[in-house]
């Protein structure tokens, strides 16, 4: 029994130290596989998740070390800043203004992957966590997913364009240079999703002149 408990404790320690928790995502997607060996960065990344129905979700990650520059560029402050920027931009073009309280901003900064139209953001942030999860995983609800269309006019950006710009301006120079290099923007889609659906997102990124980005894939299992 002693030997066994030793082993279990060792394994436990191993898993505790090496683990990075699975990101909670509104939809589970199986990414296609490729031979590329470049790994997805865990820090300074804006990743765009496209569901098979064409709903778009974004998650933001800041600096890996939360204490760099006084914690100003960690994930949570960047999320908060991005939301503030996005709302400011949204209110310029829309008559029904959105305003959020400090505690609502705080709630937002805790959410890993978000995707609700800005007009529903207040309602969404005031839900309990289980309600939020339930709300966001209903893919047939038109109020889920960041609104996106084939808008080419950046004077009147759609919400996806607002968000991507907001994230860019909320980040520090590390995030910005990563996004420029294309490593900071990752597009993730299911392997069965029609190209038409993903193309919509790629096209929007092109319009934003964020035409360098990375596509998330899994490692190819077959021997090449």
């Amino acid at each position, binding site marked *: 029994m002693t030997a066994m408990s030793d082993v279990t*404790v060792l394994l436990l320690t191993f*898993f505790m130290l090496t683990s990075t928790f699975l990101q909670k995502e509104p939809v589970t997607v199986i990414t296609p596989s490729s*031979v*590329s060996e470049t790994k*997805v960065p865990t820090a300074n990344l804006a990743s765009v998740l496209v569901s098979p129905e064409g709903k778009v979700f974004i998650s933001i990650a800041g600096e890996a070390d939360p204490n760099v520059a006084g914690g100003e560029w960690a994930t949570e402050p960047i999320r908060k800043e991005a939301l503030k920027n996005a709302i400011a931009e949204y209110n310029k073009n829309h008559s029904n203004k959105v305003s959020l309280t400090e505690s609502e901003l705080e709630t937002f900064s805790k959410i890993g992957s978000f995707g609700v139209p800005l007009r529903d953001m207040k309602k969404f942030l005031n839900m309990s966590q289980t309600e939020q999860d339930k709300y966001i995983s209903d893919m047939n609800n038109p109020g889920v997913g960041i609104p996106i269309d084939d808008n080419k006019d950046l004077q009147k950006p759609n919400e996806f364009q607002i968000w991507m710009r907001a994230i860019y301006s909320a980040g520090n120079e590390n995030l910005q240079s990563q996004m420029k290099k*294309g490593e900071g923007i990752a597009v993730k889609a299911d*392997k*069965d999703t029609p*190209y038409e659906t993903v193309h919509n997102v790629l096209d929007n990124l092109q319009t934003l002149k964020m035409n*360098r980005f990375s596509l998330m894939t899994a490692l190819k299992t077959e021997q090449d």
Partner: protein
Amino acid sequence: MAQIEQSDKGGKKKKGAQKKIPIHVDFTPMVDMNMLLITFFMLCTTMIKSQTLQITLPTNEKVDQTEMTQAKESEAITLIVDTERDADGNIKKDENGKPLNIVYYYEGKPEVTNETIDAASGLLTANKLQREAFVGNEGDIQRGIRKILHDRNAEVLKRIDVLKKDWREKKFSSNKDINDSIYQARAKEIRNDSTLTRPVVVIKATPQASWEGLIGALDEMQINQISRYQIDNMNNIDSLMVIDYVARHGKK
């Protein structure tokens, strides 16, 4: 084992001495709990990090026709990725359970003009489109679209193979990292060597093509060391060619 034996030296027990019971600690609940925690951590962790494919798309800004760099016709090859779907939009699978991703391709220009369109049927009189499947290697032999691309980029691949051999034998440096980086730099030089015949690949995808198919096409570029490729949108001629091909040869 998990018990502490207390030796009881012989001799007469003193009167009033405490009775000594061997202490036995039961580890079972602790091990149970550890196992549960291990299971929890195992299920919640991600060991494999996703890989990424870096791509650069052209901007949407209008570019003057004269400013565009025209690819040589002999070098150009266009791939059109398509996926068979049933009426519900589900991807059809072949007998091995693999999704039916197809790739059509043509070399050079499409050569479709008003004269080559048959007025009665709306189809073409001649179609240079060909169809291939995404199949990997069989042993050392490339198959399907990989063979087509491999043959067109043979000059580059031959040089890279020589380079790879040196890299495996660590000829550049005995240090693994330096060896790798020298190899990468040399391979890049070869890929971009304009004195070699290299193809220019244009990748297009039909609206119903699966994301997997497109990534598969991009992946073939990596496998075949093709440095010049781009993703483009389908135009009327491309769609017409695909429709015409299906009308002639049927679906797969």
